[in-house]
């Protein structure tokens, strides 16, 4: 694990407008995500964890402050550029899997690889990408489920496909929003094991929002948010007194 920050935010503010009243959600967050680490984001409901994750994932733009990816300010880039960065540099895993119901397991996994190329370019690289996606799904234990639609799969299997989809493009950072939140205890444990195994073997950086103590305890560092502010960043083996 390197100590250089791959993703960082400086003085990050976000507020939404309810009617005419601005409602602050994040109040000046400064945070670094180091390359190869698993960073946990914890906090009570409404603390701003998901909002921070969306801002780090370039799905939303901050009201103030900046997000840096490999030292470059990416939050001020245009929509097209941010979309391209999301496609190349970031991966997402959501609590409710968010798979496309019309596509098979293999189709869902391949989708990020199909976003950039035109159809005729895709025909040239299709074979290579399919082989990679197959290998990834096989590694995640889904070799027999390649042609199945999401509706034909269990929750754990769907989340594995979501993980495979996030990993296909070898992203710099994978952002996970409560990846075990919709799974039973045993399946949740399997998914946790899988994420840490990938981190160990490939050095993939993870930012994980979770309420699951078992998961949080295994993270390398944990950032705790309270009322839109960063309360503490600590080693989960030595948690600060709350």
């Amino acid at each position: 694990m390197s100590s250089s920050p791959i993703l960082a935010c400086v003085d990050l503010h976000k507020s939404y407008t309810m009617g005419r009243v601005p409602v602050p959600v994040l109040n000046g967050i400064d945070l670094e995500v180091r390359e190869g680490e698993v960073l946990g984001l914890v906090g009570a409901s409404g603390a701003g964890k998901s909002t921070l994750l969306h801002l780090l994932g370039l799905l939303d733009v901050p009201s103030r402050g900046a997000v840096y990816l490999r030292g470059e300010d990416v939050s001020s880039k245009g929509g097209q550029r941010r979309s391209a960065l999301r496609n190349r540099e970031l991966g997402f895993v959501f609590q409710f899997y968010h798979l496309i119901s019309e596509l098979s397991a293999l189709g869902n996994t391949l989708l990020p690889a199909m976003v950039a190329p035109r159809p005729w370019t895709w025909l040239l690289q299709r074979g290579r990408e399919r082989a990679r996606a197959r290998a990834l799904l096989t590694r995640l234990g889904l070799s027999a489920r390649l042609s199945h639609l999401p509706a034909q799969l269990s929750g754990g299997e769907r989340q594995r496909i979501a993980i495979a989809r996030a990993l296909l493009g070898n992203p710099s950072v994978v952002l996970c929003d409560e990846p075990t939140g919709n799974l039973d205890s045993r399946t949740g444990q399997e998914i946790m094991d899988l994420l840490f195994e990938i981190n160990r073997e490939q050095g993939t950086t993870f930012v994980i929002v979770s309420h699951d103590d078992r998961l949080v305890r295994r993270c390398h560092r944990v950032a705790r948010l309270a009322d839109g502010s960063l309360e503490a960043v600590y080693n989960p083996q030595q948690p600060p007194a709350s």
Partner: protein
Amino acid sequence: MRLPFGNPFSAALRLCFPSASTVLLGFRYITTRWIAWLSVLGFAVGILVLIVVTSVMNGFVKEIRTSIRSSLSDLIVRYQPHEKGAPPPDLAAVREALSEIPEIDPEAISPRITWFALIAGVGINLRRLAPNGAFEWTRVTGAEADSFLRRDEALFCQVIGIDFDTDRRATNVGTALRGFEQRPTRHVTDYPVPDIEDPFCVKRPADGALLPDQLLRRGEDGERNAMPGVLGAWLAAKIQSTARQADINEFFHRGCEISLLTSSPERLSSGAQGATLTQSYRSVVMTGTFRTGTYDLDKDIIFLDRRDMARNLLEIRKDPDGYFTELVLKAETLDDEHSRELARLVRQTLERKVPGYSFPVSRWQDERRNQLEAIDYEKKMMAFILMFIILVAGINMFTTLWMLVTEKTRDVGILSALGVSRLGILQLFLTMGVFITLIGEVLGFIGGMLIVENIAAIETFLWEYFGFKMFDPTVYIFDHLPAEAEASTVTVILVTTFLASIVFSAAPAIRAAAKHPVQALRYE
């Protein structure tokens, strides 16, 4: 100000080339939803109807133009003597004058006599094999010269005397004799002439005479001669039907006679107390039928040999061989402007070379100008009205896409997270609109062309199995339903529909692209 899609020119360019994910998802979203197939069906039906209707209208216009042109010839020259009662101009002099005009084919200058008559009765002769092995002819009882007239059922007809050899070059009379081959129809019975090179020949090469010998003798025993004539197939059918009403139950067939009640131009003009009509009966024996495909012509016209008609029907005493009422000409020039100039030239040449007469010249377009313009106008109006079908199909597609945007809101968020830009989301829903339209257009085009190509078979099928009369030849001027798809019209239909589909998919696509990714991901 930063535009949501970046540089508008590069955005427009990118919009034309969707990504692989857009094509895949667009196709999957469409093919997995029955409501999208309903939209496809809407476009398919719209395109099909437009192609069929415009093809039928196009067929009508072309058929009418061809029919009018070929039956009337390119130019029709009539004459008016400056002195009342003067004989017709010298045919040889007229021919010679016309031969000087290079655009006129000298072989296709044909004199005609157009006259009118009533069909007063029918004579049906039956040829039977007698016990002695020879053929004998018998006349069917009741089939007399005035059998129709006595029942007030005389039929009007137009008698046209032609010089077949030259007329076939100037008009479509030669083609009309083969009409039974070119326009097969269940509506009438055709009786092809025995000799296509000599339609007025009453001898059949295979089995001899069409008529009893005494009817074929000319100018002997003071008997009236039966003139060989070719009847319009619909006229023959009318005679058959009238004969039935007159209790004559034998078929009116090739070799049967009709008696014409008429007068003559000489009798009209030489009446002692001005124009008095002296009627006379003349017999015409049917050597066969013709079909131009134009019902109006095929139900009224009898073709006779011009010289025979002048001598025996009109009883022209002075130079009957040179008697004519009009000339039909074939011109090399076909376009509207040149033919107008040519008509003027013909008139001036004739009036200079053949003094004492004026020569009004009309073109085939002039003869039926109102009819041609009306049909062309109807075609355009029909296409315009039918475009509303595309409007309905477009609204149908708009509704489908609008619903899909709502249904797929979360997918918009997922795709955004995967790196699809707003332009990509816009492109996805536009692509779906394009897919719906293209599939509909392909299906509609195939269906439409199949119907256009097989419209006669479909019409016959509907008639035979369901008794549904899709096309009534007695109402229209044709005896068949013409349909001809025109490449330019079909292209306009397909391109207009395609452009309309882009307009109809734009609003749902913009709505989808405007969705915020985070809100879309949280959509329940």
